[in-house]
């Protein structure tokens, strides 16, 4: 479980952009962080990822504060997918995916056959294995995002234990009588579809749904796309000016009242027969709460 408890953060002293937010992401959960531009979504996500430290409050992973974990240990448990990735040099898709293996290797260690097998697997599961030898810069936006997700998966992917370890684990598990859950990592995505065309948006969302279902990856996604959040997420956190407006199951949070409060827009929330939720903006109201 990834948890933030009453976290605060500001880039300039006296101007916090995240103010007292609490959030829990259960194992195999899929949580959306919603809010207008500048509401603190990205900053909150950075604190969850441990790349920014909360100035007040704390973020914990399975009860341990992130500040107590080493960077590598943390990186092996969760990976971040940014809105866009620009590379300084012409790396191939395979090389980009391989960068996900960084926290698994020592300072002078070189990726071995096992790491190659991992990226082959994650490229396959993101449908990008055929692009392996292409230059990353030549891909479409959707393909790039899928490759970055493959790298992120390679980062939180644990190598299948050797047969000997498996045997011993099986014995231990049989003795303890419980299933192991620690294989699952967290994927943190910062507006992963914001700069994509409609088709690529669908490509990425359906990939996320599939990863969540089949590989039991826990997902936190920040977005200002209400429809995407409504379709994808079990639960939502709605932010305005760095503060929580609503937090809970998607149906409870994505209400016309909340949309009006946060975006200043009169809207209808419709459930489509496909299971998708659609937010129809009707007109702008004047009671926007600032931000």
């Amino acid at each position, binding site marked *: 479980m990834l948890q933030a408890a009453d976290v605060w953060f500001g880039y300039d002293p006296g101007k916090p952009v995240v103010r007292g937010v609490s959030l829990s992401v259960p194992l195999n959960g899929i949580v959306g962080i919603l809010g207008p531009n500048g509401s603190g979504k990205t900053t909150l996500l950075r604190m969850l990822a441990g790349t920014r430290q909360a100035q007040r409050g704390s973020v914990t992973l399975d009860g341990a504060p992130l500040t107590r974990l080493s960077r590598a240990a943390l990186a092996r448990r969760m990976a971040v997918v940014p809105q866009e990735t620009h590379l*300084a040099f012409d*790396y191939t898709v395979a*090389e980009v995916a391989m*960068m996900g293996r*960084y926290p698994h290797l020592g*300072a*002078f260690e070189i990726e*071995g056959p096992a790491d190659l097998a991992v990226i082959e697997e994650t490229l396959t599961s993101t449908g990008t294995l055929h692009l392996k030898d292409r230059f990353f810069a030549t891909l479409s936006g959707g393909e790039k995002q899928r490759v970055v997700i493959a790298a992120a998966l390679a980062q939180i992917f644990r190598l299948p234990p050797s047969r000997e370890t498996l045997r011993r684990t099986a014995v231990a598990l049989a003795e303890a009588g419980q299933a192991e859950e620690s294989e699952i990592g967290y994927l943190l995505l910062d507006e992963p579809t914001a700069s994509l065309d409609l088709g690529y948006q669908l490509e990425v969302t359906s990939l996320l749904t599939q990863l969540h279902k089949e590989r039991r990856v826990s997902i936190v996604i920040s977005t200002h796309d209400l429809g995407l959040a409504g379709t994808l997420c079990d639960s939502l956190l709605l932010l305005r000016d760095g503060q929580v407006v609503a937090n809970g199951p998607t149906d409870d949070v994505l209400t016309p009242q909340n949309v009006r409060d946060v975006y200043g827009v009169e809207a209808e929330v419709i459930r489509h027969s496909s299971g998708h939720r659609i937010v129809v903006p009707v007109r702008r109201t004047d009671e926007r709460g600032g931000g």
Partner: protein
Amino acid sequence: MTLQRRFVRTVLGFGALTVLTLLLTPLVGPTYINLRRVFDFSIPFADNVDAQIFFVARLPRTLAGACVGALFASAGVVFQGLLRNPLATPFTLGVSTGAALGAVLAITFNLSLAFMGISAVPVAAFAGSLMAVAIVYALAQARHRGLSTTVLLLAGVTMNAFFSAMILFVQYFASFADTYRTLRWLMGDLDVASYQPILAAVPTMAVAFAVFAWLARPLNLLSLGPDSAESRGLDVARAQRAAFFSASLATGAAVSIGGPIGFVGIIIPHLVRLLVGPDHRLVLPASALFGAAFLVACDLVARTILAPVELPVGIITALIGGPFFLWLLIRRP
């Protein structure tokens, strides 16, 4: 092919090229020397002209070229990876000129006082490059998303102009003979005529190359941008500090030996990336080796093309590097 095998192939390939260049170039020059006589130790050294030319003039010059070429080329790779900009080099950033200012100060005011067995020139050159790098660092910190090409080149022009002015100012106090010597040195000259400058730079070189070896993987991650690198488990601030520090060390060492020789730091990394791809674990060793061979070869041209006149090698590298740099600027989108 696995990375291990690519690494071995790359190092062996470029290593062979470098070794071959280093073995052949001392034999070539305006005066013919007989190899058998060079290594005929029955003749007293004072009477053995061939051995004198080989050991006093050509060998130190070749070694100096190899060290300086390797240092500038790998420092170029590190600056480019660190600033995420393929046009960053010790020369274009003004770091070479900063190091030159330090060295010129040490030479002009005769700071030959060696402290703790370290000669003053490399230390002063390192101090100068560190000062220049501190300014680049401040610029890079102020712009979180990396330096744009425009900002980077403008900063380089400014720093080069500023440090050049300081050098001219120092020259104003120097004697005519000193000024001539310094000017020639500022053009980039490998005519060291002794092993002393090379030996004096050995400690700095050793530290710089050791840090470079550690930096190879962090530089790969930094190509993704600082935030993504951090989330992959890299201590970005530490890697950046290590990169700035070691690249300044390398630049200081190179300048203390051969002066601010330009363009090696941009030609070599680019050619190497075309040959082996962008992975810094291949680019760094290959650039160091290829840079050594390249500068030694350029120096061979410099000292033979107008023989018996010996040109400073900086003229040759600038004649090749200038057009290359323009081509890169035009080619980039």
